């Protein structure tokens, strides 16, 4: 797996784009909805994360002829999807281990 620090906001941004391509405001609202309003991204945080994901080739910016400059759409690349799947796999494993440990403690 690539060494890229996946903070919770970045993970949620990736999950938001995993479903469909979105523009900035749509990502902001989707992250809020996915986290039950626990993670509220500011535009500064969002575009910082998007810049890093673009740089690493995890997402791409769609160049549409009719889209205005202030409403660009972002899409997950195959590399981003692969890394996201590996991150989910890692979390699934961690959850499983946590469940087992907690069950052992309670028994």
């Amino acid at each position, binding site marked *: 797996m690539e*060494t890229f620090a996946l903070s919770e906001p970045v993970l949620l941004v990736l999950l938001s784009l995993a479903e469909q391509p979105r523009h900035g405001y749509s990502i902001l609202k989707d992250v809020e909805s996915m986290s039950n309003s626990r993670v509220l991204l500011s535009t500064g945080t969002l*575009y910082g994360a998007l810049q890093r994901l673009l740089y690493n080739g995890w997402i791409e910016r769609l160049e549409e002829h009719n889209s205005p400059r202030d409403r660009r759409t972002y899409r997950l690349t195959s590399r981003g999807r692969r890394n996201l799947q590996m991150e989910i796999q890692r979390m699934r494993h961690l959850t499983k281990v946590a469940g087992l440990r907690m069950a052992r403690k309670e028994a």
Partner: protein
Amino acid sequence: MVLRIYCWLLWLYPGSHRDKFGEEMTCVFREARSTVAPALTAKISFYRREFCGLLFGALRAHFERPFGPDIPFWRFYMQPEFRFPRSTVLLMLLIFAAVVLAIAEASSVAGDMSGSAWRSLVSLLLVMLLAMCTAAAVIWGILHARRRSGVYRLQNVHS
């Protein structure tokens, strides 16, 4: 008015970032602002989050220029389990008090300084700097020998 402040704060970002995302960020901010609940607390929370995010984002964008997107020391921010020791607060307060005192003292003596006084002041400052560097090196050496220096703390954080 608020939108103007936001656009002004965008100038804190590096030019390349501003050219690439400036218009989009302004547009998203405008949309997000229009959906904030009318309650005063909600508005305060929204503006605090936005302006802090902008300042923090600008700072990070400047660091990313020489270091790339994965800034090594920025991992403090990414590691929620990392906590500075409590003594850091005391140390920072002491440093802040020393700086304030030094500024006050310097402004009081700045008025009547002759050329020779300036030279002696510069040499005094150099001696003090040398003494402080030596003291810092000795303290760091002791901490490192006891495996309590920042190097070991960082190893613990990443492992």
